[in-house]
Structure formats: structure tokens, C-alpha cells
């Protein structure tokens, strides 16, 4: 152990304690209160005194005072522990790094003050650099990762804990063996390597977790749309029954009229009008039985649900579906995603016109299956067909605009998917042709 006189040791300790609190305040802006700042200063001074007489006591006290900072702002305990771990680790790591550099630069015995100053300055520089880098990294990653998810927080916390324990263990062992300086360098290098491994491991783990969550959501969605489809099927059956009943009633009416029983017939008609709660004009126009016979739940689901969406938006919708369409299982997800985007785009585009129309056709023959999505646009709309595929361009402002580029990407992944996009006479048509494998 290198000798430091008591006063300078105490000053160093105080400054290091202050750094810990500074880091905590940077990481958690919510606890930057006047009272907390005073608490931090007082605690730093007190602990630096205590540390002189009871080596090592400072750290547990520091931890206790850290938890005292959360008197007003009360986040999760996992979060509090995570921030504590980050603060402690950053502090300890930058301290070691600063120390090693200052020892190498200056001779401790001849240039004591310079060495100390260098140590302190580097310590702060490294710690702040690491912290701000970490914050920047988290901000960038938060586009992809939900850092509020308790499980993700737990994963990060536990990996942070492993890192800190490892680092502390190394330092302690080298201190006990009295070879701290020699091992410090190895320690730092090892810690950096371990950090990289743990960081990557954690990222992979989180990525896996996110995928799993997505899969669960997808499954739920499928369940929902299946329910919806069931309901529609029932609806359709009911409508058919209604049609049937209607014909029977008309038949009985015609019999009455043939018997010249005009009065009775008139009453019967009145009754009928009163009875029929169902307005014929209100019956959904999705009564294309072939639509319900598409053999793939996902594809069928997306077509029906988007058609209903379009209908509800007041768009005139027609569907033409060849009977008994079968879709290969391995294509169904791609097709569903492509159709989803195409329908969304078509719905957006045609709504700008006075008489929005959306037409869909599914044509199937021996060699290929064709999905056609066609919509009209407002008269004289200018669509640059060569630009709609590039990212960020869309005829609608503030629209996400990545739709068709995404479609093209999905199509490119399949060697037997072919896309045809046409804009002519104020009509926009996209045809997806899927060649069948022989």
C-alpha cells in the first residue's frame, strides 16, 4: 500500500464521496433537491472522517445515505439498487483508472501534490465521461428497448451486480496480497473485458426477451382476429337465414294476393315492416362467401379486418375472391404483412378523394396466386411511382412513409414473389404475384 498522509487521504476520500453523489444526481435528475445536496456534502465530510479511523466503514454508510436521498421521489427498489450499483461501479472504476495513470506519470514521493491533483482530476473526468456515455447509450437504445420493463431492469441490475462484485473482489484480493498496484492494471483490463461480455450478453438476453414478448402479442392478436372472423361468419349465416325467411314471407304474401285477400295482405305487410328490425341496406356488404373460404386464417383475417376498417371509414369496398384459395403455410406471414401495409396505404390514399373506393381481388390458377389491391385517388393526384418505394416518401404528409419500401423488402426476400405497382387514370394498383412451386 502506498503511503498517503492523513489529511490528503481525507481530502481524497471526501472528493471521491462527493463524486459518487454527483454521479447519482446526474443519473437521477428527480432527486436534485437542495436538501439532498446538503445531505450529500455533510455525509461526504462525515464519512471521510469516519473512514480514517475505521477503514472501509465509509462505503456502507455511503450506501445508507444514498437511500436517504429518496424521501420524495420513490421509484422501484430495483431501479434504486441499479442506480446505486452504477454509481458505485463508475466511481470505483474511474478511481482505479485515475490512480494507475497518476502513479505512472508522477513520482509519489517527490511530486506528491501533482500526483494527487492529477488523480482527482482524472477521476472526475473519467467518471463523468463514463456516466454521460452511459446516458447517451441508454437514450439511443431506448428506441429499441423498453427500459421501464421490470424484467429488463432486473436483468441489467443483476449483470451490473456481477460486474461490481467481480471488480471489488479483484481489488480486495490484490489489496490483501499487497500487490494492488501491480494487479490494478490487470484488474482494469479484466473489468473492461468482462463489462463488454456482460453488456453483449445482456443485450442478447434482452433481445430474446423482446422477441418473446412480440410473439406473445402476435398470438393474442391472432386469437382476437379469429374471434372476429367467427363473429362475422355467424353474421353471414344469420343474414342468409334472414334472406331465406324473407323469401318465404314474400311467397306467403304472393299466395294471399293471389287469393285476392287484399285487406289481410295489407295488414300482413304492415306487420312485416314493423317486425323487420333489420334494415336491408344496413347489412354488411362483406357477403362474399369465397372470402370466408380462404384456407389461411392469417391472410383471411387481414383481408376481412382491413375491409371492415375501410367500410367503417365510408369507403366503397368490393372483393373478388376465387373459390377455395389455398395459401402455403410458409408464405402466410409474409403475405399478411404485405397485405396489411398495402391496405393501409390504399385506405389512406383513397380517403382524400370524394368517392373513395377500395377494390380487392384474389385470383388463383394453376401457376400463380395474385393479390390485387386497387384504390382510386383524388382527381389529378400526382404520384411519382419511382419515388414511392424510397424510404420516407409518401403522398401523405407526416405519414410514416416507409410502407411500400417495407413491402418491397418483404417481396425481395422471396424468390417467387413479384410486385407490380401501377398508377394510371387516378387509380393506384398493386399486384402481388406469387408463383407456385412445381
Amino acid at each position, binding site marked *: 500500500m502506498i503511503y498517503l498522509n492523513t489529511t490528503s487521504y481525507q481530502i481524497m476520500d471526501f472528493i471521491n464521496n462527493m463524486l459518487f453523489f454527483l454521479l447519482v444526481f446526474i443519473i437521477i435528475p428527480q432527486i436534485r433537491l437542495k436538501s439532498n445536496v446538503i445531505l450529500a456534502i455533510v455525509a461526504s465530510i462525515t464519512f471521510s472522517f469516519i473512514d480514517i479511523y475505521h477503514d472501509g466503514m465509509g462505503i456502507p454508510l455511503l450506501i445508507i445515505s444514498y437511500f436517504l436521498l429518496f424521501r420524495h421521489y420513490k421509484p422501484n427498489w430495483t431501479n434504486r439498487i441499479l442506480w446505486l450499483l452504477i454509481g458505485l461501479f463508475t466511481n470505483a472504476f474511474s478511481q482505479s483508472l485515475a490512480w494507475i495513470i497518476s502513479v505512472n506519470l508522477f513520482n509519489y514521493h517527490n511530486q506528491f501534490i501533482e500526483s494527487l491533483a492529477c488523480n482527482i482530476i482524472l477521476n472526475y473526468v473519467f467518471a463523468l465521461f463514463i456516466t454521460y456515455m452511459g446516458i447517451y447509450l441508454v437514450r439511443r437504445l431506448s428506441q429499441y428497448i423498453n427500459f421501464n420493463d421490470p424484467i429488463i431492469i432486473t436483468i441489467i441490475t443483476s449483470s451490473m451486480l456481477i460486474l461490481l462484485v467481480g471488480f471489488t473482489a479483484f481489488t480486495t484480493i490484490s489489496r490483501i496480497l499487497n500487490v494492488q498496484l501491480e494487479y490494478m492494471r490487470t484488474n482494469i483490463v479484466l473489468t473492461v473485458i468482462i463489462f463488454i461480455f456482460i453488456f453483449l450478453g445482456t443485450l442478447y438476453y434482452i433481445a430474446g426477451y423482446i422477441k418473446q414478448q412480440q410473439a406473445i402479442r402476435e398470438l393474442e392478436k391472432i386469437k382476437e382476429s379469429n374471434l372476429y372472423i367467427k363473429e362475422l361468419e355467424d353474421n353471414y349465416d344469420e343474414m342468409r337465414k334472414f334472406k331465406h325467411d324473407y323469401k318465404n314471407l314474400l311467397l306467403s304474401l304472393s299466395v294471399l294476393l293471389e287469393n285476392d285477400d287484399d285487406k289481410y295482405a295489407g295488414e300482413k305487410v304492415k306487420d312485416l315492416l314493423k317486425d323487420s328490425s333489420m334494415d336491408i341496406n344496413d347489412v354488411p356488404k362483406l357477403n362474399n362467401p369465397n372470402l370466408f373460404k380462404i384456407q389461411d386464417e392469417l391472410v383471411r383475417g387481414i383481408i376481412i379486418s382491413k375491409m371492415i376498417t375501410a367500410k367503417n371509414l365510408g369507403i366503397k369496398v368490393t372483393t373478388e375472391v376465387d373459390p377455395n384459395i389455398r395459401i402455403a403455410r410458409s408464405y402466410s406471414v409474409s403475405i399478411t404483412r404485405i397485405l396489411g401495409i398495402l391496405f393501409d396505404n390504399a385506405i389512406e390514399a383513397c380517403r382524400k378523394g370524394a368517392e373513395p373506393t377500395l377494390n380487392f381481388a384474389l*385470383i388463383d390458377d394453376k401457376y400463380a396466386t395474385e393479390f390485387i389491391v386497387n384504390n382510386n385517388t383524388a382527381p389529378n393526384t400526382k404520384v411519382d411511382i419511382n419515388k414511392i418505394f424510397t424510404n420516407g416518401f409518401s403522398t401523405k404528409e407526416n405519414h410514416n412513409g416507409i410502407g411500400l419500401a417495407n413491402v418491397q423488402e418483404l417481396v425481395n426476400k422471396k424468390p417467387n414473389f413479384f410486385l407490380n405497382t401501377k398508377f394510371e387514370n387516378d387509380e393506384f394498383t398493386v399486384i402481388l404475384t406469387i*408463383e407456385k412451386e412445381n
Partner: protein
Amino acid sequence: MLNVAICEDNLELIDVYRLIFKNYMKDHPEHDMRIVISTGNPTEFENYIKYRSDNNDMFYLIDIEFADSQTKGIDLAEEIRKNDATAKIVFITTHEELAYLTFKRKIEPLDYIRKEDGIKSMNESLYKDLDLTFQRLHELKSQRKKMFHYSLGSRDYTIDVSNINYLETSSSSHKVFLHSLTEITEFRGNLNSIEEEFTNLYRAHKSILVNLDNIHSIDSLNKMIYFNDGSSCEVSRRKLPGLKRKMAQ
């Protein structure tokens, strides 16, 4: 000579159509045309399609639904299309029966005539369709436009070469992307064989063939080609001088 063939199960309507065609002939004595068959029986009509002996251009007027027959108008049209890609087909339909996109896709009809629009509108539509037919036949014979062909699935497609801006291949798949004035389409193929066939298509890049007739300008600095409609594509540095020479010719 243009042959007109009519299939419609309502006999009174057949007379109406015949009259319209007769009037058109009277109004346009310069056009050589005749009605070769007009029937309400789809089977008879089908036989005519299958066994007709002459090579004349055809104009078909076909009803979509026949009350007493399983055969539908679209079946007849598909039968026609098997042997005759240029035959002009006009469907007669009521609003509900029309599967617009499917028909367009499978048959490429010239027009649809709606029964509920009334005789006067029918008359106008047929006059317009016949005008268009003669105009197209004339174009086809006089200039023999250079057409680009490709096939996909069960269909053959033709595109007027003068509408093409450029073709490109993607390195990952064996697909060719065709960029024309109104559409972008893709199909299986390779640029080498296309380049050989069409002299006005120039290889501006390892993976791009451009139509020299549609180029508006060349940006040598950024190595870009701009087309008349505002679209653009890349040109490789190696090919730039050759392209300029071609354009100067």
C-alpha cells in the same frame, strides 16, 4: 376486315346490338366489317370460337351471365384469349355481376357495357369502342410498335418499349425490375438477353439498362441519368463516355 361476334341470351337485345352495328357501318363506310355470328346460345358461340377458319381481326360482344347455361361470359372470353391475344372483347353486364379486377386481369377487355345505363348510353359506348378498335388496329399495322414481352405465373405481359425508362437487376435475386412511365414491375430474367434484343436500350451500369429515347439529361458529376418524367437512375463512370456518344448521335 373486322369480324363482329355477339353472344347474348336476350334475343331482343341482340336485335338492338345488331342495329347499332349496322348503323355504325353506315356511318363509317371506310371501315370493312361484318357480323359473323349473333346468338343466344353459348355453346354455339363456343363452337364458333373453336372452329373459326379465317384470320380476321375480331370484335366480341359477350354477356356475362346466361340464364339457361352453366357457361359464363368469362369462360367464353378465356377461350378466346387462349388463341387470340389481340381480339377486342366487350362485356355486357349488370352492376352486381361485375368482378371488375378479375376480369381485367384475366381477359383485359376493351370495355364493359352496363345494361342498366340504357340503350342510348349503350349506343354511345359501342360507337366509342369500335372507333378505338379501328384506331388500335391501324396503329398495330402501320407502325409495328416495338413491344417488350415477359411472362409471370400464367400470364404474358407486353409493354410498349417507348414507355420504358430503365430496367435493373437486383444482385440478390434473379429478378429484373422494369420502370416505365406508369408502373414498376418485376419478373424473372436477365439483362443480357434483353440488351441483345433491343438496340435502343443501353447498358449504363452493370445492373442497369436505360432507354436512350427517354433520357432527358445526364449529370456527369453525380453520375446520374434523368428521364423525361423526372425519374432517375445511376450510370457507372466507365459507361458514361459511351452513353454520351450514343446520345450525341
